[in-house]
């Protein structure tokens, strides 16, 4: 008996089952991830001498962390999708033209799909520039309503909810609670104005009454106390709730328990509508939180979730649709049978009219999900998730 040949035979026998599953090396599928080095949304403030936002642990909260978890989570799909997923990251420097840099990066690195984390203005420039590349993109952070309406783009999908979905969710909750008189406080930024505008539209749709609209500013200037002092800002009006639009959250933290009249605070503090919150404990969400926290040692934000689910959308489309004739992500995403599991209850899919991911919204405090929208009493003739956000009649998205 030749021991060497016996060993070789045993080795070969052992390798057979592995060969069946991993017969050939799958081609690489590059997913590009782009964001800005200097992005006001990720500015660090309020950390000296103590981090006043430590409850949410948001010091470093770029959603690329969610995409990284997504990459890890879609690796097991590789046996079925027959491609090897990779995430190629590119951060745009302040002196670079984002659209140009991304355009070249996609061409040079064989990028097949992209995730975009940009504010509105850059996002519009980028999507216009890459239109002729015919690559599908997912917006993971901009909630701007116009992106889902008058300024939509046929190649741009959204996994982060729109402002309108968030404000509709709040309005449903207030309507159900019969807290119908609302005072609106708006911050100095354009995005703050857009938030308030969206909320006012939602209030109108769900039968709430806006009893006052006021603008706040940061500071202690006694001459501007009608705008920086809460007693003045919230005085002389009748309301059940105070809505505050403060994207940077520098002012809104001080509003709960400090309004002139007893009232709940909603919007940017108090009860906050979010796509995702780490305190949600149902529908498999704790497993996702757990994997994220073990990987990144911080809480998972809604933008992290949007990037994570975007990665899952790519894998899901490839696994179930890539063998179809004329496969494209654009068609697969809006196919009637496309289904995505976002670990927050119902099955998710994209609205074909504006490519927004349908999804429940978590109405949450800093450490608890108080309610989930759509609320049970709001029904839609086709899909209850369409009671929040722009439906095919209100969206002005033409292409």
């Amino acid at each position, binding site marked *: 008996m030749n021991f060497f040949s016996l060993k070789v035979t045993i080795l070969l026998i052992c390798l057979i*089952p592995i060969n069946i*599953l991993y017969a050939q090396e799958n081609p690489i599928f590059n997913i590009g991830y782009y964001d800005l080095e200097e992005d006001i949304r990720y500015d660090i403030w309020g950390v000296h001498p103590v981090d006043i936002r430590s409850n949410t642990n948001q010091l470093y909260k770029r959603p690329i962390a969610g995409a990284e978890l997504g990459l890890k*989570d879609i690796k*097991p*799909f590789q*046996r*079925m999708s027959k491609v090897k997923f990779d995430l190629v990251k590119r951060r745009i420097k302040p002196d670079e033209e984002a659209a140009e840099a991304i355009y070249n990066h996609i061409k040079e690195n064989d990028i097949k799909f992209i995730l975009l984390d940009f504010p509105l203005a850059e996002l519009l420039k980028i999507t216009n520039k890459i239109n002729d590349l015919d690559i599908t993109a997912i917006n993971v952070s901009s909630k701007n309503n116009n992106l889902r309406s008058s300024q939509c783009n046929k190649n741009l999908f959204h996994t982060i909810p729109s402002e309108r979905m968030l404000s509709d969710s709040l309005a449903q909750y207030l309507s159900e609670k019969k807290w119908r008189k609302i005072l609106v406080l708006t911050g100095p930024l354009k995005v703050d104005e857009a938030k308030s505008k969206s909320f006012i539209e939602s209030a109108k749709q769900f039968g709430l009454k806006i009893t006052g609209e006021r603008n706040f500013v940061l500071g202690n200037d006694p001459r501007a106390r009608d705008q920086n002092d809460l007693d003045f800002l919230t005085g002389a009006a009748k309301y059940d709730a105070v809505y505050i639009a403060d994207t940077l959250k520098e002012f809104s933290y001080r509003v709960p328990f400090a309004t002139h009249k007893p009232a709940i605070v909603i919007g940017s503090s108090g009860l906050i509508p979010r796509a995702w919150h780490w305190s949600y404990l149902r529908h*498999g969400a704790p*497993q996702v939180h*757990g*994997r994220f926290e073990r990987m990144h040692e911080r809480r998972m934000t809604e933008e992290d979730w949007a990037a994570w689910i975007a990665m899952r959308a790519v894998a*899901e489309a490839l*696994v*179930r649709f890539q063998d179809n004739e004329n496969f494209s992500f654009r068609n697969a995403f809006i196919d009637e049978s496309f*289904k*995505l*599991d976002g670990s927050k209850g*119902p*099955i998710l899919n994209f609205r074909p009219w504006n490519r927004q991911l349908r999804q429940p919204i978590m109405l949450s405090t800093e450490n608890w999900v108080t309610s989930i929208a759509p609320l049970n009493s709001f029904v839609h003739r086709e*899909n*209850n998730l369409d009671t929040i956000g722009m439906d095919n009649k209100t969206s002005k998205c033409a292409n």
Partner: protein
Amino acid sequence: MRFINFIYQNFVKLCFIGFLIATFSSNAETILISNEGSDNITIIDLKSYEVLATINGGKRPRDMHYIPKSNSLLVAASEDDTIYRIDLDTYEITGKLETGDDPEIFDISPDGKIAVVSNEDDNAATVIDINSGKIIRVIEDVGIEPEGVNFSPDGKLVYITSEGTNTVLIIDPWAGKVIEEILVGNRPRRGAFTKNGQEYWVTNELGGTVSVIDTNSYKVIHNIKFEKKGIRSTEITPVDFAMSNDGKLAYITLGRSKHVAVVQTENYKVIDYILAGSRVWGAAISSDDKTLIVTNGNSDDISIIDTDKRASIKSIAVGITPHTVRIID
């Protein structure tokens, strides 16, 4: 009068002795419910529907399996990272099995030698020697959030549903290998073999369907859909099975829709929907196929269903968030 007094005085004692006999001498015809929110197990008489006892189940007790030979119960206590062995004569925990992190669903080989458990957080399945309680091996990469675990009737293979990967993985637990992976619907939760072992049925909780896999070809040969007037498709979230012992019917709990579907196994036809409780999940059927028990996770109770009438005849309050139900009869 003295005689009546004697009877009266001893009546209480007799009742107590009778109770003891009923509780401790045998566990024939009982319903066992694990309550994951209140860390206990409710034991109910299958005939009278009286709650006989509520016993400690470890932290977050979920799946359970009965071992007739020793009249004991194996309970996966997810937060204790272990499977406890509970003596059903004394209701005491008498041992435990190593499981790895967060065991939820497990199954026992037909010969009773090994158990296979899914470790949801580690994307792994653990193979355990039941006698020694020691881990034999860990099979990694069984998809994301593996959940349902079933030994094939011949005991050679284990089928695992992977919630996050939308697949069923077929593994050889004796050799520790992944044999095959099959794409099913969205969020596959649990599986069950048909009585003849020719098919493996899988509930797709978010897909709202049941995938039927041929156990010879490993192909999905049918998708069972559920439709009932008045129930939206998004409410139909199938989770658990009870296969009738005569092999003819499958009872499938439909979660948020509050209904249990009755399906004919020979032609996959859905013949009825039975109203149960809120978020109906776990299911078990008595050996005579007359009584179906389901757990209602959102209303902390169970529904007793008469399978001839195809109707719930009673609901019984149990612990918080009832998870698994087993019937010993």
